[in-house]
């Protein structure tokens, strides 16, 4: 049950513009049910290489060109998604490349290709037609040569030569368990075609591309969004839900991915944690990774060589929220090891302040996360509540950290990051500073609106069965 979209590569929120006005816009076909319908119309047409699908008007515009055609340009679009036939835009080939329609026009020996329509310097019998795709001087494979696309060359001494276009399998290899694989293989190891990630048939699944932006679940390419042992995909075969893909490994197994490893704390999701904590936060001992009881699992150490699944140490082999383990308790399959401390991701403090820092007059101008402070006199990216004129007492100079509102947590600044209105600075209380204790006797408090619960717990409890 393959989708016609399987032949297309998607660029979300993108329009393909033709810069030569003589070409003129192509007509829109309105009220097309969905992008698949567009693909069904474009697929069989030899002069349709791509199409726009308007997600709001459900319109479809068939295009005879792609982003690799001359005088075209990609443009961000709030309305359209661009679908281009894989054969025309992929830089790698499947099988022997007879369907390749890319624009490589040079041979492995570096010789420019001869135009197919030319019979000089090398005469031949392959004349271009709309169907055989022998366009310009692009590498093609009209005779099914097992070595892939080739061309006649412009060197009379070399009649023809292969172009050396890599197979999509060889074009990208996988590190560790292939979580970072972003190649274009779209068939499983048994040869079944992959289902598109943005479709729920034939196999419904939870991996919606919009929800897993960091996994780049593009089109129907093999990916590893769930920490499996290697990239996989759902298949277009209704009888087979998902299968692994056959992809080459890069180099040695054991090097970790790009994050540094930590021993006494964990950073981010803890994928680099290599410490020896071996109980859950609930104090339950962890099960050994190389054991299958009390819990059977798929995380065999030899299949996750670079995840260091030694003994029963807390680890994060699948990109979960934090280090975790299978527990030794039959009734509790897995648990996080949140008792492991988080490494601080603050910058090292560069200066110090006394009290709450209201009298700090230093020139530190970075937040604890390293973001540059916004000038107090600026209005963007954040409109300040405190300005040099509104708070003269605070000496709001340039973009230096200050504490105009007596914030008890120290000097701060508005930041140049649009997403972070303000943050505390890379400062710390001076060693000789003793903040006053807060453990004073409580004083009276009055609450009006919040904190009420209807009905009160004890009454409600009496009604519970």
């Amino acid at each position, binding site marked *: 049950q393959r989708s016609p979209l399987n032949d297309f590569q998607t660029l979300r929120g993108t329009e393909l513009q033709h810069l030569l006005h003589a070409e003129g816009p192509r007509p829109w076909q309105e009220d097309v049910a969905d992008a698949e319908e567009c693909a069904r119309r474009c697929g069989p047409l030899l002069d349709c290489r791509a199409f726009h699908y308007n997600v709001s008007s459900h319109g479809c515009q068939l295009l005879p060109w792609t982003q690799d055609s001359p005088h075209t340009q990609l443009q961000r679009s709030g309305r359209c998604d661009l679908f281009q036939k894989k054969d025309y835009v992929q830089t790698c080939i499947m099988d022997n490349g007879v369907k390749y329609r890319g624009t490589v026009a040079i041979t492995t020996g570096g010789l420019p290709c001869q135009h197919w329509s030319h019979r000089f310097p090398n005469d031949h019998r392959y004349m271009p037609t709309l169907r055989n795709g022998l366009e310009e001087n692009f590498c093609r494979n009209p005779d099914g040569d097992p070595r892939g696309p080739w061309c006649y060359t412009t060197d009379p001494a070399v009649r023809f030569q292969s172009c050396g276009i890599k197979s999509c399998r060889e074009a990208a290899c996988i590190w560790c368990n292939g979580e970072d694989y972003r190649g274009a293989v779209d068939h499983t190891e048994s040869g079944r075609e992959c289902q598109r990630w943005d479709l729920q048939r034939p196999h419904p699944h939870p991996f919606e591309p919009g929800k897993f932006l960091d996994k780049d679940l593009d089109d129907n390419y093999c990916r590893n969004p769930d920490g499996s042992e290697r990239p996989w995909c759902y298949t277009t075969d209704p009888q087979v839900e998902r299968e692994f893909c056959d992809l080459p490994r890069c180099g040695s197994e054991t090097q970790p991915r790009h994050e540094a490893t930590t021993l006494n704390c964990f950073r981010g999701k803890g994928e680099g944690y290599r410490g020896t904590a071996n109980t859950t*936060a609930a104090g339950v001992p962890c099960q050994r990774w190389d054991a299958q009881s009390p819990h059977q699992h798929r995380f065999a150490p030899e299949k996750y060589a670079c995840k260091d699944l030694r003994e029963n140490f807390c680890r994060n082999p699948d990109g979960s929220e934090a280090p975790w383990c299978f527990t030794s308790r039959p*009734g509790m399959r897995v648990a996080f090891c949140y008792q492991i401390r988080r490494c601080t991701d603050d910058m090292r403090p560069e200066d110090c302040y006394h009290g709450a820092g209201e009298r700090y007059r230093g020139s530190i101008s970075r937040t604890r996360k390293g973001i540059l402070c916004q000038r107090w006199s600026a209005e963007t990216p954040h409109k300040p509540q405190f300005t040099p004129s509104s708070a003269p007492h605070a000496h709001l100079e340039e973009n230096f950290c200050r504490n105009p509102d007596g*914030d008890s947590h120290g000097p701060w600044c508005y930041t140049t990051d649009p997403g972070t209105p*303000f943050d505390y600075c890379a400062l710390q209380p001076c060693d000789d500073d003793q903040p006053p204790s*807060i*453990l004073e006797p409580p004083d009276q408090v009055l*609450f009006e609106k919040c904190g*009420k619960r209807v009905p009160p717990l004890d009454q*409600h409890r009496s009604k519970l069965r």
Partner: protein
Amino acid sequence: VVGGQPGISPWTVSLRNRQGQHFCGGSLVKEQWVLTARQCFSSCHVPLTGYEVWLGTMFQNPQPGDPGLQRVPVAKLVCGPSGSQLVLLKLERPATLNQHVALICLPPERYVVPPETKCEIAGWGETKDTGNNAVLNVASLTVISNQECNIKHRGRVRESEMCTKALLVPVGACEGDYGGPLACFTHDCWVLEGIIIPNRVCARPRWPAIFMRVSVFVDWIHKVIRL
């Protein structure tokens, strides 16, 4: 929650990851703001697409038709001051307050809860088979002074933290409850005095539990919501 019982806590919310799984608790302090624990998030700049807050239900896995259920995407995360172990989550839209969903009061700045004050924790976390995993569990705890707490914890408890009395039987928060509330009944109202953070062991008998003291960070909370 270990040693608790099914109960109601209309300000307690469930944080859900992209797979829709519950992974932490939180407290609704404003219609559009939830206070929870830093420990629950991998970084202060984590992509939040797909993360949601579920409110208005007692169930860990409510049915889609659950009348009280509100599912609100998380729009923004703001990390608390260094050492606070807190984060504030801004929701994409305000929660609707009703008999299933209510705000909890914030204490005045630097307010210290008197010892012996009655409080409760709530969460959908690990029960260690002492409760019903399918619903919200609530357990009662009593505040003790930092001075008393530091006897057992050998002076490690900071002023920005607070403690509850050690009990002979296992009662307390556990994995999956982090970020949830320690709510105390003060002057005829429930007030969010503490936030559940990971302790070395969950609900350890004869051992005082440690929470973050919310009143130390109330000025930061007001500032973030205001700015």
